[in-house]
């Protein structure tokens, strides 16, 4: 439909990978991520005989790290990719070549997405191997799914931040959009909780388990990439209990449904990014 040149997409993606894999901020956050991941695996096994806990227990503790740090990495990677490069002048050189904007956008997404994938693959991969070596790897496949879902989480945020970067004029505004995106993810749960309480819900019901939750509370997670992703991880590991709470969710929040919604979270912002980018004066 768009008649894209795959070689151009590959060239742009390769450049984005090479340029960003050496960014000191990305390296720093990734190192923190990897250290926290391994520490988390260690800590979650603290009550048993083994040094490391089981994969399921580890995954529950890793989820909070990945829902915090992976969006940060995605935002750091993507905020400046259009707004910043357009402001600095690098994008005008690239777009003066015989390339299409759609090729540049897809190339950027794939290249930055590859950088993003490296961190969870290394971080979770190392901890997964250590744990599997120590206590056996019966749930190895589920752990691989967990790594894939961590990458999906990153791609959702990457797609969103690229969309903002294509929309706003300056790098500073793109940073502001990134900060806003991150805090939206952080406060979304609080907003939903406030709505729940406002509609007559009780904290005691929340503590008693998910089965007493109203249906709309479950439906609200489709607007939160982080929650969607956490639910998918729980489905992958068949986790029904976490931190003392029952985590039983309705059947319609199935793995295919969760994957489709996450896919939509990746594709729709990218389509919007293309529309903004195509209209943009560079």
């Amino acid at each position, binding site marked *: 439909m768009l008649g894209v040149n795959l*070689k*151009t997409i590959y*060239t*742009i993606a*390769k*450049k984005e990978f*090479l*340029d*960003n894999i*050496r*960014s000191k901020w990305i390296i720093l956050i990734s190192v923190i991520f990897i250290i926290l991941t391994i520490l988390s695996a260690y800590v979650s096994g603290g009550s048993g005989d083994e040094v490391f806990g089981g994969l399921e227990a580890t995954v529950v503790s890793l989820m909070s790290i990945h829902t915090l740090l992976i969006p940060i990495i995605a935002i750091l990677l993507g905020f400046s990719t259009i707004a910043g*490069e357009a402001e*600095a*002048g*690098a994008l*005008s*050189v*690239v*777009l*003066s*070549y*015989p*390339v*299409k904007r759609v090729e540049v956008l897809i190339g950027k997404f794939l290249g930055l997405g590859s950088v993003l994938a490296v961190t969870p693959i290394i971080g979770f991969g190392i901890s997964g191997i250590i744990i599997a070596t120590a206590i056996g790897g019966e749930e190895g496949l589920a752990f691989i799914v967990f790594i894939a879902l961590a990458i999906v989480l990153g791609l959702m945020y990457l797609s969103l931040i690229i969309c903002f970067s294509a929309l706003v004029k300056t790098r500073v505004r793109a940073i502001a959009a990134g900060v806003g995106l991150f805090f939206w993810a952080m406060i979304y749960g609080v907003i939903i909780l406030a709505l729940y309480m406002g509609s007559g819900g009780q904290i005691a019901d929340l503590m008693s388990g998910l089965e007493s939750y109203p249906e709309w509370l479950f439906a609200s997670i489709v607007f939160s990439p982080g929650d969607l992703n956490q639910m998918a991880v729980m489905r992958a590991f068949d986790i029904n209990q976490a931190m003392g709470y029952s985590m039983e969710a309705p059947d319609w929040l199935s793995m295919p449904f969760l994957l489709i919604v996450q896919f939509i979270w990746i594709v729709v912002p990218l389509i919007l990014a293309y529309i903004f980018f195509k*209209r943009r*004066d*560079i």
Partner: protein
Amino acid sequence: MVTKTVGCPKCKTHIEIQGSPGETKIISCPKCNTKGKFTFPGEIKKIDAPSGSFSIEIENLTKKFKDLTAVDNISFKVRKGEIYGFLGPNGAGKSTTIKNILGLMHMNSGSIKINGYDINKQGVKARESVGYLPERVAFYPNLTPLQTMNFFCELWGVDKSIAKPLIKEVGLEDAINRKVGTFSKGMVQLLGVAQVMIGKPPVYILDEPMGGLDARWVKTIREKIKVLNKEGATVLFSSHILSEVENICDRVAIINKGKLIAEDTVENLNKYLKIKPRLEISIPGLNGKVPEVVKDIEGVEKAEADNDILYVICESSSRIKVINALEEAGLKIENIKTREPSLEEAFVKLISKDEGGA
């Protein structure tokens, strides 16, 4: 026929090959039998373009930013093989026009063709003919110049073997493995110059190419523009520094406040504006005073003195009268120089006229 020496990527054996510019040859290493491809750096790229004698055609281009009309219904054509200067003060609309030519900005109305291709309808085809150096050039901070050039070679679809010679040509060979993020503004500009030559395109659009460079590199770039032009390329370049364009442009266009106020050769612009030459007369003992005898001569527009030099702007026919009057007044003339009107004077006069001045 060109001879090149290339190194085998596996055993590092030097292999000598011959070929024509732009030709791709399959090479086989005589030692380890490794096979590879090498493309000889091309001459000016041959573009399958619709026929026509203009490289760039702009018709009634208008570009607005909300209430501001940055480019106001301008039209001009750049002939194939000419060096075309695009002049104007800062903020006149030069960069906006150039960005519209390349399709980087979306025009409000008008049409632009590069080598016959409409930039709005056949953007990729149109840009196949162009090398562009923006006013504020920037590259990727974590890449080295070689990686940057390799990236642009890949984007152009040309062999990466031309990257190193081009980096050397602009004098950045000592920084070839440094990250571009550590470069000075001038070094980034030089990398930009190397980048623009990658595809050997038939049209070059250079936006303030000498900005931020020291005198040595300004001269180098000016020479480079002449060489590219001799090889057959069309060059459109913008500047607000008139001395940069005066000696190398076939024609110039002058833009002010988004409007094209003149387009011609430098010589014709001066004739049109009736800018007079200036006499520079050395008179020992003048001491900064303009002799009274000069002021009353018909045809003298302006007379000023600076120490022992008398500057007189006058009609050509009045020159001899000035000299005779000075000699009759008993002043000893040591030396006389005539300075022809400069583009700067034309520029100032045109802008002054455009803004309602004298």
